[in-house]
């Protein structure tokens, strides 16, 4: 048996859900670990310090996963270091590949985000209006630092070169297993590719009318999930529940659909699609019956951008180009 693959896993700005997905592989992970030597898995699993990583030799890690977006200077720094140390770098999960939930923050200014997080919410008690500062001198002698907030959310590939992408929030464990096995076996597509089946959620969704030999009909109603309980067998979009299944990579096996929840797009756009949100609009609007229904959709969801860019604002055509809206101006 060949040497074990030196493996690293870094959580950048995410929620550690992707780690959970990896752990969810259960015995398959155990099988994989036979081939893996974990050299770094911080900050969630193994107690390895950043200095340890910095001390490693360049390209000494065979395979590294990053989950989470780049939201602060620490994320940026560690990802850059990991890139230097790794032969193959995989952006893992919606945040690392698309920006994730946090990227919606890019539609707001930093000031707005900080006020919301540290001042304005109902449960916050901060009468002096203290905000985190990267540098702080405590008692006139202790020089404390915090990572600096970046101007925008970055996906991993916007900062460093990424070899492979895995989508999902989090990636479905079955598919993670397939990806890990493919990596272990060295059975990989060209660099820069997504490790994906390349098919939409509809392809694996039991509700797809096409799967039953039925034709899609135009949709005259628009519902949110709170508006009622959809028929569990019929296509959600056909029932007027806005489902992004057609637009989204379906490596999840249509998990949400299986529990009667419409797809919200965590799998990211299909390969070849330049902008997830715009494509969503195009596909969903095309299925609506008339202008009035499109208008209903606009009225029903109060923020179209956050609806369709729930996971992918950083990766689209606009990515970091647009300066954030200033709330004070509105």
């Amino acid at each position, binding site marked *: 048996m060949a040497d074990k693959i030196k493996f690293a896993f870094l959580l950048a700005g995410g929620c550690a859900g992707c780690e959970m997905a990896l752990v969810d592989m259960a015995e398959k992970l155990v099988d994989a670990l036979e081939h893996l030597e974990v050299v770094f898995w911080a900050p969630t699993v193994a107690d390895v310090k950043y200095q340890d990583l910095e001390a490693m030799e360049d390209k000494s890690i065979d395979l590294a996963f990053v989950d989470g977006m780049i939201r602060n200077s620490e994320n940026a720094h560690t990802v850059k270091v990991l890139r230097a140390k790794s032969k193959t770098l995989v952006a893992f999960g919606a945040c690392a590949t698309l920006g994730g939930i946090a990227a919606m923050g890019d*539609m707001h200014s930093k000031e707005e985000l900080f006020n919301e997080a540290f001042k304005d919410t109902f449960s916050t008690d901060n009468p002096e209006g203290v905000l985190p500062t990267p540098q702080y001198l405590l008692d006139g002698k202790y020089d404390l630092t915090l990572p600096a907030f970046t101007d925008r959310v970055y996906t991993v590939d916007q900062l460093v070169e990424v070899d492979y992408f895995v989508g999902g929030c989090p990636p479905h464990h079955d598919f993670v297993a397939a990806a890990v096995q493919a990596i272990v076996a060295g059975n990989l597509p060209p660099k820069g590719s997504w490790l994906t089946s390349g098919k939409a959620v509809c392809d694996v969704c039991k509700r797809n009318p096409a799967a039953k030999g039925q034709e899609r009909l135009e949709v005259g109603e628009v519902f949110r999930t709170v508006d009622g309980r959809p028929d569990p067998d019929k296509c959600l979009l056909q029932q007027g529940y806005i489902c992004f299944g057609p637009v989204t990579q379906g490596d999840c096996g249509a998990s949400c659909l299986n529990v009667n929840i419409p797809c919200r797009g965590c799998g990211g756009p299909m390969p070849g699609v*330049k*902008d997830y*949100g*715009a*494509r969503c*609009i*195009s596909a*969903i*609007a*095309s299925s*609506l019956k*008339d*202008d009035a*229904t*499109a*208008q209903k*959709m*606009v009225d029903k969801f109060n*923020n*179209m*951008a*956050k609806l*369709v*860019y729930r996971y992918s*604002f950083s990766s*689209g*055509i*606009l990515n970091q*180009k*647009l*300066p*954030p*809206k200033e709330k004070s*101006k509105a």
Partner: protein
Amino acid sequence: MSFSPNIVGFACQWCTYAGADLAGNLRCKYPPTIKLIRVPCSGRVEPEFVLEALARGADGVLIGGCHFGDCHYKEGNYKTSRRMIMFKKLIEDAGFDPRRFRLEWISGAEGKRFAEVAEEFTKELQELGPNPIKGGTA
């Protein structure tokens, strides 16, 4: 002096593109701000195209299609209309002034109207200032 906005237009070849040609035949005058990309039908215009143009700094984007009922392909313009209702909201929510994007129905017989739209849109964009991506304000 007000700046000269750059407008990318997507024009259905059966109506708006023909209308723009007719504006030429009639020698209507309008500012050289608008440049058309010919498409078979306004329904061919992907929202991504508009987004791309804006992201690349176009100050305004126009889609020109046939009037309702006049679509050469029966109903392409209806699909466009539906998509763009939602798309307009999308760009607004994403931080663009929705006035930077226009959907106009201009027939092949409406040369004068094409010139008017170009003129009007240019004026409006001059008031809005340059695309925020190019340093203007949103």
